[in-house]
């Protein structure tokens, strides 16, 4: 007998620019611990019931190394009985954490899990401190290590996503995020964090004054003849996120308030040269498993790693952009790699409830050529 799995809470830290934002000086383990504590307080769960703290991280080394999940558990003062594991599927890491929790619940291997994600892109560089590539693989199959910017250019070219369309999406993303921030629609999810004695309460990457004219003047960021600019790429970001994943029964009997139910999940590989297209195959698989069609989706959280990639996926899947990223996407909010999966899945769940809708999708692309997708339904 399969158990239903619910998302019973979602929070995140403010997201800030790496290297120049307000969270540069905050260790990622400490950041995540504050977010996990916030989740416990807001959800009201008894921490003793938690089976495992599963933390997604794309570059788990330095201050986010050493099985950081266990250390976050200590920092957040979880009971010693709560286990901790760190998972890595690059940008899909914390959505993967949710999928692992769901699998465990259905295996009767636990009733409640905290699924978190972290990335301090200020304090741990992309590719880590010691990138040591397999020289033979680099020679035979260079796409294995292809840079993300290059994949965005590939997608833009192959799917003919013009620079103008990319910039339109960036403008919309900032406009939506700015409105959401101004109207207080983000405060439910944000846990203010303490950065060496000063409190950071709001997002830092959103630029409300973003305009098409302003963006048109930027130089291409990755290729001299390219169409992708800094503004149509998600910024390097510091941030953490966490969702509470429980069995539906547990949530009911313990007075938790589920936001949404997990309906189906999937991962899929794709050509690494166009890793941005990963959501297409993953979403199709998940929809099929859910017995749904794209048209059934009311809410979509599609990660905007790059505008080009998000638009190409939306085109390919036939997603309705009016139902997508209602409070803005990563172009405006930022994309702290390991933390994004839990953010968009938690956000999709929260939006289902807020908007009173039935089905939602969260999906994202993953470096190395993968996609990951989650279908949610109203709790």
């Amino acid at each position: 007998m399969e158990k239903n799995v619910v998302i019973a809470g979602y929070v995140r830290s403010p997201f800030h620019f790496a290297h120049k934002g307000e969270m540069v000086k905050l260790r990622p383990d400490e950041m995540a611990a504050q977010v996990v504590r916030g989740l416990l307080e807001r959800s009201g769960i008894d921490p003793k019931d938690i089976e495992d703290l599963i933390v997604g991280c794309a570059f788990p080394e330095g201050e986010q190394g050493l099985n950081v999940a266990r250390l976050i558990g200590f920092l957040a003062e979880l009971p010693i009985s709560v286990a901790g594991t760190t998972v890595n599927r690059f940008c899909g890491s914390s959505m993967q954490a949710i999928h692992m929790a769901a699998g465990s619940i259905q295996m009767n291997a636990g009733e409640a899990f905290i699924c978190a994600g972290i990335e301090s892109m200020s304090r741990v560089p992309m590719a880590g401190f010691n990138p040591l590539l397999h020289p033979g693989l680099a020679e035979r199959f260079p796409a294995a290590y292809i840079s993300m910017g290059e994949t965005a250019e590939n997608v833009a070219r192959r799917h003919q996503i013009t620079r103008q369309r990319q910039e339109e999406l960036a403008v919309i993303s900032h406009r939506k995020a700015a409105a959401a921030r101004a109207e207080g629609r983000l405060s439910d999810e944000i846990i203010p964090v303490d950065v060496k004695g000063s409190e950071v309460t709001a997002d830092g990457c959103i630029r409300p004054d973003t305009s098409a004219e302003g963006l048109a003047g930027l130089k291409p960021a990755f290729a001299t003849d390219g169409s992708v600019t800094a503004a149509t790429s998600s910024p390097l970001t510091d941030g953490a996120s966490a969702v509470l994943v429980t069995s539906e029964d547990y949530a009911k009997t313990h007075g938790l308030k589920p936001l949404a139910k997990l309906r189906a999940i999937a991962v899929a590989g794709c050509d690494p040269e166009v890793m941005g297209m990963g959501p297409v195959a993953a979403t199709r698989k998940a929809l099929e498993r859910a017995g749904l069609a794209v048209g059934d989706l009311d809410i979509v959280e599609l990660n905007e790693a790059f505008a080009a990639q998000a638009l190409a996926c939306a085109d390919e899947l036939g997603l309705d952009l009016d139902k997508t990223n209602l409070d803005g996407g990563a172009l405006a909010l930022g994309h702290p790699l390991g933390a994004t999966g839990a953010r968009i899945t938690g956000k999709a769940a929260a939006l289902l409830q807020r908007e009173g809708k039935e089905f939602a999708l969260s999906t994202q692309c993953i470096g190395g050529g993968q996609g990951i997708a989650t279908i949610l339904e109203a709790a």
Partner: protein
Amino acid sequence: MAISQAAVIGAGVMGAGIAAHLANAGVPVLLLDIVPKGAENRSALAEGAIAKMLKADPAPFMWPRAAQLVTPGNLEDDFDELVHCDWIVEAVLEDPEVKRDLYHRLEEVRKDGSIVSSNTSTLPLKLLTEGLPARFAADFMITHFFNPPRYMALLELVAGEKTRPEAVAEIAAFGDRVLGKGIVHCHDTPGFVANRIGTFWLQCAVVETLERGLTVEEADAVMGRPLGIPKTGVFALLDLVGLDLMPKVDASLAATLPKDDAYQALRRPFPLLEKLIAEGYTGRKGKGGFYRLNKANGARVKEAIDLATGDYAPAARPSLASVSAARRGGAKALVAHADKGGAFAWAVMSQTLAYAASLVPEIADDIPSVDRALCLGYNWKFGPFELLDKLGAKDVAARLTEEGRAVPPLLEKAAAAEGFYRVKDGRLQHLTVAGDYADVRRSEGVLLLADVKLKGPPLARNGSASLWDIGDGVVCLEVHTKLNTIDPEVFKIIGKALEIVAKDHKALVVYNEASHFSAGANLGLAMFAANVGAWPAIEDMVSEGQKVYAALKRAPFPVVAAPSGLALGGGCEILLASDAVQAHAESYIGLVEVGVGVVPAWGGCKELLSRYSRDPRRPKGPMPPVAAAFETIGMAKVAKSAFEAKELGFLRSSDLVTFNRERLLADAKQKALSLVEGYQPPEPVELFLPGPSGKASLAYALRDLFAKGQATEHDMVVATELAEVLTGGAKADFTEPTSEDAVLKMERAAFMRLVKTPGTLARVEHMLETGKPLRN
């Protein structure tokens, strides 16, 4: 009282620049200005000045972190903070009443024993202290900095009759040792010393140019290099300092100088100047001046103004026989020449130098003070009296007499004796006002190679370098090629130094007194060898350099390098091979070899890798030192100060910085002697390099740079070779050590592969021809 906290009042260009330089020297400084009317941010002026300085080029700060020592504030809310300040520098409007009002306010807050000084360039001290209490007069003096304060080495000090001598001594010592300035004690006369003579010279040159119908290009060609004056000459200098400054300085001097002063006779209207200023042609800070850059049609064309019509035309390269003659015969040949350039030079310099001779002791006690003021304040290679000696005091006096012009008494005395300077018993002496000679005094702790050279012959010498005994068992290695480039002759002298010092001396200092420590290897030689396909000769030069630099490093005695100015490429590698560096603060250090299409091959790659590997601030693992060295060398990063050089690892954190150029040799000698006891040469370091895995990572990074247009095709070739060297080559693996010698071998091999590529040869040729790197 030690100066441990300073304040500057007035956050204009000079005030802010002085504050920045105090911060460079490690002194916390309060920077105050008025509260702008209706301002929300009451300290906006000081804050704005700091922000602006952080973006300015040339940078007032030696490194961005120095800015943290400058605390911005305003004269209303923060005035009481001045109670903590030991030295308060006033740099507000040149208005005696404004200044005196401020001084009265200062008297209410400043502590006993604190010193107040004004950075005025035009107002007499007597006027500034009028009506102020005795305590103020005792603690007050003029400290006149030159613009920009970080870079100009002159600090003119004017003390009043009532100024405490201890206060003057304290500021003089602080300005000299801490701020690195050359102190010139001036009398309280208009324009003090440097501007009194400098303004006369400028005015005279402008007048003579106009009256003789020379072009601005001709005037600058004559009034620059041939006389040891910066190539900006007259008109380009006016563009640099701002055309609008000239009328202001002129008005101030005209008002304060006696009516019979020779300057008054030079004054006359200059309608073109007024027109230029009115139209916004205020010089480089404005739309242009006597010269401008015309960017129309996409090209950047340097244009010069026609002084008669006011029209601009592409700047010409004047060819004057007098200027050519000066290349061989110096200033003397210039003024002796009969063409219009020679006549112009004589007219201007005879008036200017005679004027200078007439002003001692009115403006300063002695002639070395005047020479120092012009050398440090106007960047003249020779001061007025040194120039008179170059021209021959006798000859100048005779020619003036011949032309029926007056000969100043001091010049008469010099002509009758042995000139303004002479060398007696190995000591430099100057003519005194009384007509006899006295030793040119150096401050304690100043050791000049120029003085050492007067004492006797070198220990060894060839066309490229010399060895000097600088006392106490220390030998100085001086390179003296063009731009002090390194060539095989330098290697020979280094070999000699290794012998001599090991035999009967204690330590070696590498130092010279030119503007630049060393611009690197002699490219001309390499190019010549490449053109005739003499590859073995090039490889010899590389391996010989490696051997010599390694021998310096392993020598049984301490080696201290003391750079100032550029220390690039092979020059930088000398620093890297030394046991310690005593760096002038204004040292510009970098491994820039990629600019000419090669990799550092005299141990630069090896040394930087080994330093970065041992740097505890870096993350662990095989890649961080390699990636950092790849970035530093691959981007040809040049540190813009000794402090930046520490950040980049060209200097160790234990290396010392000297602010005063004249103290560099003595400080380096001291450092070398401190290392003598128990000296052990450094052991070779084992490096743990990543090999092909690391090279693959760097290759991806390079590919992205190329796609972004940040690396050119030949950059890719050069950087790929650099990656090969820095990652340790095909056989390296970080589980086992790679020896320093193995890295040296790879440096050499990569250098040889690169030097044979057309891309590299094109870069070398371009650098030799234009002095700029080629982006191919």
